[in-house]
């Protein structure tokens, strides 16, 4: 039962507005450590250097997309234990199964509410205080 303030989160999306909205929502849930990166490659560089518990990533990004990031994370023993949540939308329907196979922890459908975000997170981490 982790405190939200203890969870170190990384948001990966190519749109800065989406990242900011998500960061706002996480902050409302009490998150205190929220990093942002704009594609999978940058996210990997960040994860390599910074202990992180939670990655929330979009599917569709330039350079390296969410699925490739997920696979890279799971394939790297050093960071593979991070919780990975993927943002989904209608367009990513076909990718969901691939994400499940790659070991995604949960999905967050866009658009979402803060309550929904909490629900999705608690499925992974247990009740968040």
């Amino acid at each position, binding site marked *: 039962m*982790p405190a939200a*303030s*203890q*969870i*170190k989160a990384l948001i990966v999306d*190519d*749109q*800065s*507005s*989406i990242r*900011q*909205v998500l960061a*706002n*929502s996480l902050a*409302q849930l009490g998150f*205190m*450590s*929220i*990093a*942002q*990166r*704009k594609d999978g490659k*940058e996210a990997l560089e*960040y994860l390599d*250097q*910074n*202990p992180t*518990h939670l990655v929330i990533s*979009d599917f*569709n*990004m*330039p350079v390296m997309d969410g699925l490739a990031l997920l696979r890279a994370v799971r394939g790297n*023993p*050093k*960071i593979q*234990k991070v*919780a990975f949540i993927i*943002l*989904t*939308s*209608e*367009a*990513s*329907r076909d990718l*969901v*199964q691939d994400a*499940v196979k790659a*070991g*995604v*922890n*949960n*999905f967050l*459908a*866009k*658009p979402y509410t*803060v309550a929904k975000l909490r629900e999705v997170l608690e*499925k*992974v*981490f*247990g009740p968040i205080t």
Partner: protein
Amino acid sequence: MSGDMGDILLVFFQECDEQLQELERGLSALSDGESEQETINAVFRAVHSIKGGAASFGLENLVRFAHVFESSLDGVRSGRVAPTQDVVKIFLKAMDVLSDLVVEARDGGPSVDPGRIAESQIELESIIGGNAEAHKTDDVVPSDFVPIPMDFVPVPMDFEPVPVDFGLDFGFDPAPVQAPAPLIVTFCPHDAMYARGDDARNILIGLTDAAVAVEGGEITVTCDASALPPFDALEPDRSYLSWRAVLPAEVLEDTVQSVFDWGGDVCDFTISREGDPASEGGEAIAATDAQPSGETPLDVAPPEPAVPALAETSSAVTAAQATPAVSRPDAIQPAAVASGANGANVRRTEQATIRVDLPRIDNLMDLVGELVIAQAALESQCRRNNASMPRELGECIASMQSLTRDIQDAVMAVRAQPVRSVFQRMQRVVREACSMTGKDVVLTLEGEDTEVDRTLVEKLSDPLTHMLRNAIDHGIEKVEDRLAAGKPAIGHILLSASHRSGHILITIKDDGGGINRERVLATAIKRGIIAPDAVLTDDEINNLIFAPGFSTADTISNLSGRGVGMDVVKQAILSLGGRITIQSVPGNGTVFCLSLPLTLAVLDGMLIVAGGATMVIPVSSVVETMIIKPQDTYVLPDGKKMVSIRGDCIPLVPLGSELGLSAAVSDEPRDGAVMLIVENESGARAGLVVDEIRDQAHVVIKSMEKNYRRIPGVSAATILGDGSVSLILDAPALIASAVGRINTKLSDARAVLAA
């Protein structure tokens, strides 16, 4: 989500603009026949991102349309539909609708015609053969998916570093360090440093500056607080802390050495390369030990285990953003100093550009304008009060002048923007004009990266729109006529931009029928613009289309307006301080050239005196200056004076009397009078006779129109260094007046100057 939402929404709309540009670029490439998967992906991603953002902000209209658009694009992306020209055309049209919907969402302004949306939607759906699935996301994830719980292993917050407990090691390879190795700087201030008011912070800032001066450079600083005594033993005026910084390998030792030019005498410091024995802690401590013991209360615990560990970490991460794993966490606190604590890590990727509110830059520009005036005032005061100005003062003023200029250029560069955004918008103008006229025209863009002041970029949009519509409506012939004339069925318009000696030159070149001079002439006579018996050159006839109230379209078309088009264009260009010229070859097409200043704020001017008044002529329009020889002047039967320059005869304009300032003075150019030869873009020249050339100065343009009204022959006013107001002359208008057939009257200017 609180008041931040408004700001985030603004960011979203800015992103939408970027995505739309991306979309435009991608679709243009596709319509040029490119079929790279990455282009298709980029196009898809652009629409997808707009949709995703819009959904987060509850912009339903936008989401709905973007969704249909996205579904169709997905058809192309997945290879189910080929991106044929017809398909791309539908996408282009949808893009226009999408961009209007974005504007609608942003401004809440006039809503987009629902019929247009529906039409585009149907076309989009026809591509993938059927309805796009309804927009819903809840069932994207199969119902049998079970979220995978995660064991949570807490990692303490920043600044309480504990070895990372993922049960894994960081995998750093303490292999040989590549040369050149990162630069390691240690320093430990003496009490004296603080006593004299200096601060270790200044040295850290200096080191940071040195590090970030390298591209992508970052600095890692660790503070050794191990010498801190228990709180009750702490003496506030003593120095207890020392620091160790790792800088990028590219930083030179000398650069770092210079950081210690100040303060180096009151602290111990070492500079070494990683792997160098000197960097191994011991050396730094030795230096500390070497201090006079009375001055150094530091009982610095040698950070033996810590520093080597750090060294390894740093070598592997090449001094970038590490939160180093350290074995003495209680003694050493890592902190990235790059741009303020943690922000450095989080924001790293966004440092390349920053968004600045426009009013701030405008304000900066205004202030720089005032600075230019103040600088000129200072200079003229110094000259006036010191007939023999000391050389040093002169040098100071000269260096200040060049700095002022540099600042001005720098601010201008901040405001500069490529014309790309407005050029790309023209593609849409052409598409719409084509669909209204039923003609097929391809617009080619050149020099989109040419940069001009952003105020100009915005103001170009309307004139260019008008001119392109005109070119398509009147210039490009109907398909039958084109084929009959042996031209390709598809018309071609080239829109290009380039820099030309302090000006930006924009040309619009079409391969249409050219200007029909007989018809222009007949119309102009019919409308009473010129006398029935006027004899005009081809150029002058061409220019008639800029006359107010002129229209050659036999039927007023929906598209290019009601005969006010080109007149309005000309006024718009003139008000930007620019000029417009036409060249037209019957049957071959027409070229419009717009010449615009790079900025609307300042110009390089020549200070002249004529008829007792000091005036400014833009240096850019002065070709040369010379002394008139009486034997070279001629008087024509109608009283006009000409001067022969190397075999060419050009009209002579006695500026003072032309402006009504010295009508009493003999119009006869005195022997030895000074003449400026000025030229307009089409090469016409005239010689302006002036009393004196006084100086050359950078002047700040103050609009006449804003404060008074437009005056032919005068383009603006300025404030000179001595505080006096002076007029900036419009050389090409003076030439036109001297050549004197098109009705440019200077009487207004006379009235103003006489007042």
